């Protein structure tokens, strides 16, 4: 089941990104409309001491709200949550956030796998996981976990990634549904909820304008 988007609306989007993330996120997130109907949760690898500058930077460029996730905060629609530096970010069954200081997972804290695995538990088939540019293999196991629960796996086309290690690793590890060039990911997400946004009574099956590379793609 590749290249298929289910009729059932997805309830949340998780994004994992490492090296090259600043550019990738500022390309994708401005496409999301202000009333984007689901929460978007992002792990961007960054230095242990970095502050919330990154969230503010993105907030200025986006219609959706962008902020660092706070512990016990409920994941709300129309909002992009960034994992705070030096903490793992997890989702609870009641769709609130938890932070932990568990050891780094394969050198990363926050870890993409930790977020993805916990979000897969919570949202099951209602989750979209996206792995973007990066120089390690974080996110691969998380994407496998998302697929295992019936969610949708999207990976940035490695040819459009600043650093292609992470998307390539994800493609090797998981049965990916969509491989999209960086420029197509924002419109992909925005289109996915277009019917819902226009409150159309009949939910239109999703059609992408941009060329999709099928997930048979393997290096």
């Amino acid at each position, binding site marked *: 089941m590749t290249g298929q988007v289910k009729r059932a609306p997805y309830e949340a989007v998780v994004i994992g990104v490492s090296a090259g993330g600043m550019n990738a996120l500022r390309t994708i997130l401005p496409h999301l409309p202000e009333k984007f109907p689901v929460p978007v949760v992002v792990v961007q690898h960054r230095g242990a001491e970095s502050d919330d500058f990154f969230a503010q930077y993105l907030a200025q460029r986006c219609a959706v709200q962008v902020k660092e996730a*706070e*512990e*016990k905060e409920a994941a709300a629609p129309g909002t992009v949550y960034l994992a*705070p530096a030096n*903490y793992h970010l*997890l*989702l*609870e*069954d009641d769709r609130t956030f*938890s*932070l*932990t*200081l*568990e*050891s780094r997972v394969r050198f990363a804290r926050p870890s993409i796998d*930790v977020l993805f*695995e*916990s979000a897969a*538990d*919570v949202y*099951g088939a209602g989750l979209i996981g996206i792995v973007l540019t990066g120089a390690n293999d974080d996110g691969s196991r998380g994407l496998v976990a998302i*697929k*295992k*629960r*019936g969610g949708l796996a999207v990976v940035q086309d490695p040819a459009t990634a600043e650093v292609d290690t992470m998307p390539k690793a994800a493609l090797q590890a998981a*049965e990916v549904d969509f491989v999209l060039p960086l420029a197509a990911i924002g419109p992909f997400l925005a289109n996915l909820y277009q019917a819902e946004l226009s409150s159309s009574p009949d939910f239109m099956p999703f059609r992408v304008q941009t060329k999709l590379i099928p997930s048979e793609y393997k290096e």
Partner: protein
Amino acid sequence: MTNTTDDDKEVENLEITLLLEGMFKRYGYDFRDYSLAHLRRRLRHRLNSSALPDMGAMLHRVLHDRSFFELLLRDLSINVTEMFRDPDIYLQIRTEVVSRLKTWPFVKIWHAGCATGEEVYSMAILLHEEGLLGRCQIYATDFNQIALKKAKEGIYSLDQVRQFTANYQKSGGRESFSDYYTADNDAVILKNWLKTRIVFADHNLVTDSVFSEVQLVVCRNVLIYFNRELQERIFQTFYESLCPGGFLWLGSKESLRPSAMGEHFETLFSTEKIYKRDLQ
């Protein structure tokens, strides 16, 4: 690839509930109000490395095998810390809070969840440099005996010292950090006199009650592992442990705000998570 269904998840949740109940009834350690996402992660990790088929089997094992329980206990307690962690906040404590603490003739400090002790010694050093240590008593508590033993020893790995030193300097340290330890091969041993005002004690924040009437409660990066109800109970404990006008210092991502106890505290420095108890 077998898909995991919502049904599987429901069963796992139930097994975890029973496992936590079993651990509490059998050994008295209460993890029932910990964050489930965190527990699930740690327990699955143990499941995979112990070659057990499921959480149900883990419950059986933990009830019959104390050493396995101790293993789980270690899995479930996170002891990540460093000296002068978040140095900017130590600077704030040094410049803004210490002067207020000085108004009491004798200062008692409760460091709840002290883990391996790095931040307790950081506080002792800070108080020493501000001329207050001689009038202080620090109670440093944790439920993890292994961590507590390490805290009492005050011996840390040499490769952490560069980080500790950098933090110390950023935190407004007035001396040379190397004055506080002796190096021994690949370890640093903190000077014994730093311990004279510290009492390390086994205390479980979840099951044990108020500790002592203190002027300052330090509890950093402990509450993040608790659910909202337990957090609320702990805030109540802290409130009762603090003397009127006493201070509460939380971790940099923890906050009193969503708590009903919040009305009894004034936010002294919001970004630094330092609160002052009311005077009643």
